[in-house]
């Protein structure tokens, strides 16, 4: 299907569609859109080979604003539609955009299965810890005690952690970034694109209307140094302002992480854990870190590639064709017993 015409040097703004953007002024989705434009320009896949698929929600209006192919489907089902697209044409670069409600409330099951199957998709989950489009009810990622129209006395159920869920579902790529981190986010998105198989990216996104400041505890300029750790493969887990660096190490004797201050009690870099993107257990532990006790782990928490589902499916079809070449439908209809009259 795919016609390989390299479009020459697309710039970020070439990826803007002609549709007016209809998010609330100040919504974090704008920043993510910008980062995606940049990423698309960087990865230089022809526009006509890119497909954005989404469900329903504020986040899910995303495809309308990218000048590639796009499918704004129904609530929670984007991973399934995207799977069908990849099965039909594995050569397309398919991006799923979803929200914490779309992807983890109604769509949690498809998320599980698309990750487990390892379909080669980039899955961007905009986590604003609320249902934006339906006016601010609490979501499965909302923290306990969230006051919302459906929980006027505060929510009582425990939230799900998107990355922990993805890892438990068998995801082979899990990463995190923040809407406003315009240098960090495109790098993460590029990594997601490069990873064959399902890439899961949680993006913390500020909903200015219904949940403003939800992530201030680790995204406010004043606190980022103390509350974010930027993961890099094979590098020690270190964060904090220059001169006040801290690190993450395994608590001696137990399977538990702890924050240590470099230089204190003779602790040096060598005592810290070294990030290993291919270690799922480590990723699970990093995903569980959260302020105030721990920094929020951003970047690629886990990446351990394996062939994508759509590739394996194609391979099997090719193998079948090689085994039984020349598929003749007339012959098929005549397999087994037949008899002739007249």
């Amino acid at each position: 299907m795919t016609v390989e015409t390299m479009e020459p040097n697309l710039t970020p703004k070439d990826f803007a569609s002609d549709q007016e953007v209809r998010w609330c002024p100040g919504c974090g989705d704008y920043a993510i859109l910008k980062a995606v434009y940049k990423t698309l320009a960087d990865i230089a896949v022809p526009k006509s080979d890119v497909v954005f698929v989404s469900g329903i929600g504020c986040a899910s209006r995303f495809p309308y604003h990218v000048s590639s192919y796009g499918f704004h489907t129904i609530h929670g089902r984007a991973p399934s539609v995207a799977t069908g697209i990849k099965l039909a044409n594995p050569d397309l670069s398919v991006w799923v955009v979803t929200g914490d409600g779309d992807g983890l409330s109604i769509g949690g099951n498809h998320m599980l299965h698309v990750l487990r199957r390892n379909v080669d998709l980039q899955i961007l989950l905009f986590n604003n810890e609320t249902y934006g489009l339906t006016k601010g009810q609490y979501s499965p990622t909302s923290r306990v005690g969230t006051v919302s129209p459906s929980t006027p006395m505060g929510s009582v159920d425990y939230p799900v952690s998107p990355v922990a869920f993805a890892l438990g579902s068998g995801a082979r790529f899990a990463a995190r970034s923040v809407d406003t981190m315009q240098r960090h986010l495109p790098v993460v998105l590029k990594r997601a694109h490069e990873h064959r198989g399902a890439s899961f990216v949680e993006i913390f996104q500020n909903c200015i209307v219904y949940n403003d400041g939800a992530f201030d505890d680790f995204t406010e300029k004043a606190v980022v140094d103390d509350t974010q750790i930027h993961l890099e493969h094979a590098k020690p887990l270190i964060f904090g302002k220059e001169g006040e660096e801290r690190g993450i190490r395994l608590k001696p004797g137990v399977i538990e992480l702890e924050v240590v201050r470099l230089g204190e009690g003779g602790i040096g870099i060598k005592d810290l854990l070294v990030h290993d993107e291919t270690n799922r257990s480590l990723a699970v532990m990093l995903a569980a870190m959260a302020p105030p006790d721990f920094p929020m782990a951003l970047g690629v928490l886990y990446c351990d590639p394996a062939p994508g589902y759509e590739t394996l499916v194609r391979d099997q079809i090719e193998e079948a064709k090689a085994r039984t070449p020349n598929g003749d439908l007339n012959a098929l209809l005549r397999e087994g017993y037949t008899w002739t009259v007249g």
Partner: protein
Amino acid sequence: MAGNAAIDLTSPPRQEVESVVIRFAGDSGDGIQMTGGRFTDVTALAGNDLATFPDFPAEIRAPAGTTYGVSAFQINFGARNIKTSGDAPDALIALNAAALAVEIRDLKPGGVVIVNTGGLAERNLRKAGLEGNPIEDGTLSNFRVIAIDISKLTLEAVKNSGLNKKDALRCKNLWTLGLVYWMYDRDRQPTIDWLNKRFASHPELAAANVAALNAGHAFGETAELADGITPYTVAPSHFAPGEYRTVHGAEAMAWGLMVGARLAGLDLVFSSYPITPASGVLHALAKLKHFGVTTFQAEDEIAAICAAIGASFAGSLGVTSSSGPGMALKTEALGLAISAELPLVVINSQRAGPSTGMPTKTEQSDLYQAVFGRNGDSPLAVLAARSPSDCFDVVIEAVRIATKYMTPVIVLADTYIANAAEPWLIPNVDELTPFPVEFRTEPEGFHPYLRDERTLGRAWAVPGTPGLEHRIGALEKDYDTGNISYDPANHQRMTDARGAKISGIADDIPLQAVEAGEESGRLCVVGWGSSYGPIARAVGNLREEGHLVSHIHLRHIWPLPRNLVRLLRGFDKILVPEMNTGQLLTLLRAEALVPAEGLSSVTGKPFRISEIEEAIRLRLGG
């Protein structure tokens, strides 16, 4: 005609009969379905027309000897045109007590019953809920009984096979089949060949089964059977010339999809979630990867239909298939396909409802759901298959409509059709008319909701095509640009366009034919789907008696053929037999404003010819 090699000339004189209904029954573990399958094959080879009805229990493998563990297989075959698997069997083969207890009720008075007395021990009788031994207590006094210890005779026949007793006993279905082959003058060779192939890696099993088959046959040739029991011959039926095979509905659907996709020039992506009785289509297609078919077992029915929609968006033919509860789950996504105006074929092998209902039993009670069952004004096309082989044609027609009109099409089959088999004049695929899809490639003037003036189908532009990048979705679209629109007048226009597109299909389908009888008159019987057989036979029988009654059978449930209302209004009375409580009935009354009456049968079984005959007679005034 192939086959018919070894006709035994020493047998007693055979009675010629025009058609026969046989029912094989036994425990789930007795290999009844396989036995019926073999009998079907050789009967087809003998040139008879036939129809089969596998009737297996809901349990995977119910405890041996229980009545709910009885598996049965019915075949109607004959020299004449066969339309149903038959009302009451002429002959019952019962391999155990439970089978006898359950199945004897339906046997024709005076019918033959072959009973394995080896399965009638005290313990077996108790398990079957019988108080006495039916052979002794008069239960069978109205029938012609052949009571033989098939178990013992089988063990004897295979005693040199080296099999242990349990495995040896397993051959008793073949022994029985041998006897039945003798009774109905069937050729053993194809079955012998089949056994040798099937058990190629276990030659001792093949040999034992062949030995049992031959022993049963020899028993018939030599034993003195009960009084009044003669063997039969059934002459070949009059078939049009050509190459034939037997075909099951599930197979025919699978093949129809493959051929339909080929005719449209598309790749086939079949996406489904297992459910009884629809899984057969998935299984059949999964075996055909060498034809390039992609099959996808999704995590649920919602994912299945959504992946099919995604595949269609990406330029393949997306197809999904399910049964009642799964169809219910597809409802929301069907709306998406309607709004996105993408081709999609959805096969519903209906089963008895409501809800889980009776998963292994047949019914045709999802017509309402197919035609009306969505939120919003959501028109789509609905077709129904009338028989196993008809599935092939109907599915191809569904592909044609789906791709030409950019619309989902629901195909209604049912448990009976999916599992039953009948002879089929195999078409030459190369002679079928192709209906190649033309993807939009021209960027000039393109927008995704640009409609073909005649069909109103929208342009299909496939990701990967340079210059046609576009976004679609299920929010209302502007008629003239395809962009999101909340404009009041535009919504009316788009709603009307979606409706007109589907109604317009009526101009592209054949006018409704009258299956039998006059084009107007006192009474017309109108049916759809798998009740074709019983209705056709019932109307045929009464017409032979000289009654003026017509039969109309619908393939196109929505839109209805253009001439249907006119036809219906030409009859004084209209009778609509349905395996539901009156669903087509509602549609016909609303559309044609005719005082049609329903004849409802919801028993999980196909209609009996006699109940339709009776209903017709009643309306004809006796």
